[in-house]
C-alpha cells in the first residue's frame, strides 16, 4: 500500500504563472508577466462565488481579530504508507495532507507559484550565489509555545542533510554545505556550488520547520508553526486538527479539521459524494462526469508538472541508435494521447520534464511525423520496422491505456508494440530500469531538479541510462549562470537537446481535478502546497 497515489498529491509545486483558459499561454508562462489568474473553474456561478469569496477574504484579512473560527473541514488521505505513516515532514511516511496544514516552510510558493516569504521574510545571495542570507520572521511561535528562531532552522535543515536520516527531501537541497546562525533571526546558508535558484529549492513541500531537537518525537506530535495544530493523530483513523489562534498570518477561519485515512479511492469518492468529506484531490476524468451539473460540488482544474511516459533505454539495442529513439517518439500524436488517456485533462509536452508553467520551460513543438519515423528507421537499418515490448502495470491506472493508444499510433510507422502487463508489486524494483521499454511516472520538480535527477549521466534515477556530455555541461553552466535570461537560455537549450536525443517519451503533463464541496469557501485553486489553509471557511 505504500502506493505512489500519495506521491501524486505530494508535489514540488513550482512556478505556476497565469493559467489561462487553454492553459498554454506562452507569454504568461515564460516570464510570468501577465497578472496571475490561477483559478480556473467550470461555471460562471463559480466565478461569482470566487469574487464573493475573495471579497469576504479581504474583509476577514482586514480584521483578523474579529474573526471567530467555526465549523469542521474534512479531508481524506490515502493511508498510503500504512503503519509507517508519520507526521515527520521529511520521512518517507509523511502524510502530506496533514503536514501541509501544521507546519510552515522558510519560503513557499505564492499564488503565482514564485517564491514568496513564509518563515523567512527576505533573502539575498552574494555575488556568485554561493552564500545566501535569510532573515527570519519575528514573533512566530511553535504550537508548544516556544519561539521560532535560527536554531530551529539549523536543526530542521541539518536533519534533512544528515545522511543517516535517508530523507527523500535531501536531494532537493544537496548543494547546501553549511547552515549557520548569524544571530537569532538571521541564517546564512553556504553552498558547495553556485546556485542561483536556492529559494526554489527551499520551497520544497517537505522542507518544513520543526522545533530544535524535536526529531525523536515529531513523528507523532507534529509540532510546527502552521495554521492548525494536532489534537489527536491517528493515521489509520481520524486525525483531528484544531485552529492555531496565534498563526502569524492571522487566525484560521475553520475551527477544526479532520483528516481521515481512507485507502480505497472508490470509498473516498463515495465519501465526497455523500458529504462525509469536503474535498478530494484525486478525481479522474471519468469520475468528474459525476460532479457535472451538481450545485453541491465544484471541480477545480489545476495544471501540474506531473507526467507519465514511456522510457526507452538508450544503452540497449535498438535504442542505442539515436535515429530509432527519435522515431519511437516521433510517432506519438500527443494531443490525441491527452484526449484518449486523460479525457483532455493534460497539456502536451515535447519530451521535456519541465512543467508547462515553469519559467524555464522550452517552447517546443512536436507534431506526429509517421513518414519521418519510417525514414529514420529505414536509415537505421530497420526498413521493415521494429518489434518492441512495452512494460506497464496497473500501479498507475493510465499506463495501460497510454500503452495501447501508443501501440495504435506507432503501428502506422511499422513499430509493432507488444504491451506487457507486469505485476504492480515489485514494478519499481524489477521492471522499471530493467526492461528495455517501460512506463514511468514522475511528480513535478523545479526544472533544474527534474533535469538533474532524471537525465544527468550520474543521476541515480537516470531511468533511460542517458549519457550525454553536452547535456551535462549545459546543466552545469546553467547552475553557475547568475543572469536570469542567460540561465533560462541554457535550460531551454538543455531541453532542446533532450528533445533531439533523449530516450524518454513524455507526451503530456497531467491536469489535476480537485472535487470540492460547495460548503467550502475560499479554497485557493492552486497547486497543493500553495494553498493558504488559514483562509478557508465552511458553512455550518
Amino acid at each position, binding site marked *: *500500500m*505504500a*502506493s*505512489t497515489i500519495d506521491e501524486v498529491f505530494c508535489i514540488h509545486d513550482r512556478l505556476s504563472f497565469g493559467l489561462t483558459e487553454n492553459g498554454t499561454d506562452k507569454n504568461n508562462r515564460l516570464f510570468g508577466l501577465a497578472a496571475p489568474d490561477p483559478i480556473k473553474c467550470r461555471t460562471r456561478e463559480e466565478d461569482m462565488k470566487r469574487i464573493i469569496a475573495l471579497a469576504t477574504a479581504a474583509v476577514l484579512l482586514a480584521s483578523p481579530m474579529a474573526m471567530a473560527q467555526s465549523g469542521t473541514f474534512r479531508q481524506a488521505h490515502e*493511508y498510503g*504508507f*500504512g*503503519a*509507517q505513516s508519520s507526521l515527520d515532514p521529511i520521512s*518517507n*511516511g509523511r502524510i502530506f495532507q496533514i503536514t501541509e496544514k501544521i507546519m510552515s516552510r522558510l519560503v513557499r510558493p505564492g499564488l503565482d507559484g514564485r517564491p514568496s516569504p513564509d518563515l523567512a521574510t527576505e533573502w539575498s545571495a552574494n555575488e556568485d550565489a554561493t552564500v545566501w542570507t535569510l532573515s527570519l520572521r519575528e514573533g512566530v511561535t511553535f504550537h508548544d509555545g516556544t519561539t521560532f528562531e535560527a536554531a530551529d532552522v539549523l536543526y530542521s535543515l541539518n536533519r534533512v542533510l544528515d545522511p543517516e536520516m*535517508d530523507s*527523500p527531501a535531501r536531494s532537493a537541497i544537496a548543494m547546501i554545505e553549511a547552515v549557520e546562525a548569524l544571530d537569532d533571526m538571521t541564517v546564512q546558508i553556504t553552498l558547495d556550488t553556485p546556485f542561483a535558484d536556492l529559494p526554489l529549492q527551499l520551497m520544497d513541500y517537505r522542507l518544513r520547520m520543526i522545533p530544535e531537537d524535536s526529531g525523536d518525537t515529531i513523528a507523532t506530535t507534529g509540532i510546527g508553526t502552521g495554521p492548525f495544530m494536532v489534537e489527536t493523530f*491517528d493515521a*489509520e*483513523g*481520524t486525525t483531528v486538527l484544531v485552529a492555531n489562534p496565534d498563526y502569524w498570518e492571522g487566525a484560521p477561519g475553520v475551527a477544526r479539521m*479532520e483528516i*481521515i485515512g*481512507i*485507502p*480505497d479511492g*472508490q*470509498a473516498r469518492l*463515495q*465519501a465526497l*459524494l*455523500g*458529504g*462525509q468529506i469536503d474535498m478530494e484531490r484525486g478525481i479522474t476524468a471519468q469520475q468528474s462526469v459525476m460532479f457535472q451539473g451538481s450545485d453541491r460540488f465544484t471541480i477545480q482544474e489545476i495544471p501540474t508538472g506531473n507526467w507519465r511516459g514511456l522510457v526507452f533505454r538508450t544503452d540497449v539495442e535498438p535504442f542505442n541508435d539515436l535515429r530509432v529513439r527519435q522515431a519511437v517518439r516521433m510517432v506519438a500524436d500527443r494531443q490525441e494521447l491527452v484526449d484518449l488517456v486523460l479525457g483532455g485533462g493534460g497539456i502536451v509536452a515535447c519530451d521535456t520534464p519541465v512543467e508547462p508553467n515553469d519559467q524555464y520551460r522550452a517552447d517546443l513543438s512536436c507534431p506526429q511525423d509517421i513518414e519521418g519515423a519510417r525514414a529514420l528507421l529505414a536509415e537505421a537499418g530497420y526498413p521493415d520496422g521494429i518489434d518492441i515490448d512495452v512494460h506497464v502495470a496497473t500501479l498507475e491506472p493510465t499506463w495501460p491505456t497510454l500503452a495501447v493508444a501508443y501501440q495504435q499510433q506507432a503501428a502506422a510507422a511499422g513499430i509493432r508494440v507488444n504491451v506487457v502487463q507486469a*505485476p504492480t*508489486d*515489485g514494478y*519499481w*524494483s*524489477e521492471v*522499471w530500469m530493467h526492461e528495455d521499454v517501460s512506463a514511468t511516472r514522475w511528480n513535478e520538480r523545479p526544472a533544474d531538479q527534474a533535469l538533474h535527477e532524471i537525465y544527468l549521466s550520474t543521476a*541515480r*534515477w537516470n531511468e533511460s541510462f542517458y549519457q550525454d556530455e553536452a547535456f551535462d555541461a549545459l546543466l552545469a553552466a546553467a547552475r553557475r549562470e547568475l543572469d536570469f535570461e542567460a540561465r533560462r537560455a541554457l535550460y531551454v537549450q538543455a531541453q532542446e537537446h533532450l528533445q533531439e536525443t533523449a530516450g524518454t517519451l513524455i507526451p503530456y503533463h497531467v491536469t489535476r481535478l480537485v472535487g470540492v464541496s460547495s460548503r467550502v469557501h475560499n479554497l485557493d485553486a492552486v497547486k497543493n502546497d500553495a494553498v493558504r489553509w488559514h483562509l478557508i471557511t465552511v458553512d455550518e
Partner: protein
Amino acid sequence: MLQMFLRRLFLGAITVAIVSMIIFAGVEILPGDACTAFLEREAQGRVLENCREELDLNRPAVVRYLDWASDALRGDLGVSANGQRSIAEMVGARLQNSLLLAACALIVGVPTAIFLGVVSGLWRDRPVDLILSTGAIFAMTIPEFVSATVLILVFSVWLGWLPGIVLTSANAPASEFFPEIILPVVVLAMVMTAHILRTVRSSVIEVMNSDYVQMATLKGVPYWRIVFRHALPNALLPAINVVALTIAWLLGGVVVIEVVFNYPGLGRMMIDAISDRDLPVVQAIALIVATVYVGVNLTADLLTMVANPRLRTLYTRK
C-alpha cells in the same frame, strides 16, 4: 463422543498449521517485500539494506517461519514489521469491530432468513414464495460490492439519509459506529439471508412432505401444531450448519465489504497488511481466521449431533 471431539480438535489444529504455512509461502512468493513496498523507487542500495536489516528480513524464510510459529504457539503474535507495534494490540480492536459487524448482521439476518425461509417453504410455489425465492437468488448472485455501491448511491448520495462510508476510527467504542454501520450490515444481511433462506425453504418443504407429517395430518393434528411442534424442529437442523458457515464467513473479515465501506475490521487490515508486505500481521490474521473457521464448524457439528438424536445415538452406541 469425547474421542470424536478430540479427533476433530486435532485435525482442526493441523488444518490451522497448514493454512499458516501456505499463507507464509504465498506472501513470500509475491514479488517485493516490506521494504520495497514501502520505499518504492528509493528501494536501492544502502537504504534498502538498512531497511531489511531493521525489519530482520535477511534471514532465510524457513527460519523466520519457525521463529514465528513457536512464538505464536506460546500466544505471542509478535510485532508488526512496519511500525513495530504489538500485533495482539492492533488485531484486538479490529477483531472487536469485525465481531460487532458480524453480530449486527447475524441479529438482523438470521431471524429474518429463518422466518422468510419457513414462509416460503410453507407456501411453496405461491406468489409469496416466488417473490422471496427470486429475491434471494438476486441477493445471492449480485456481488456484494455492486449491491454496496448501489445502496450507497441511493441512500447516501441521492437521499442523503445514511452516511455512505465508515469514518469512525478503529479504536472507537461500539456505540460510535452507529449509524455508519447500517449500510454494511444491510448488505451483509442481504447476502446471508439469501443463503439461509434457501436452505431453510428446501428443508421445510422436505419435512412437510415426509411420512410422519402426513401421518400427523391424517391423525387430525391441527396444521399449525404440526408445523411448530413436529416439522420445524427437524427442518431447522440443516440451518445450523449454514448459519455456522455464515458466522465463520462474517468473522473471517468480510474483506470486500470492509474495503468498500472503509470499515476498520480484520478484512481491511488484512488487505493493508498484504500491500505493506507485513508478514507478521498477515500471518496473525490468517491464524485467527483459520482458527475461527475450524472452531465454528466444529461447534456446529457438535450442536447438530446434540440436536439430532439419530446422529447422537450413532456415535454413543459404538
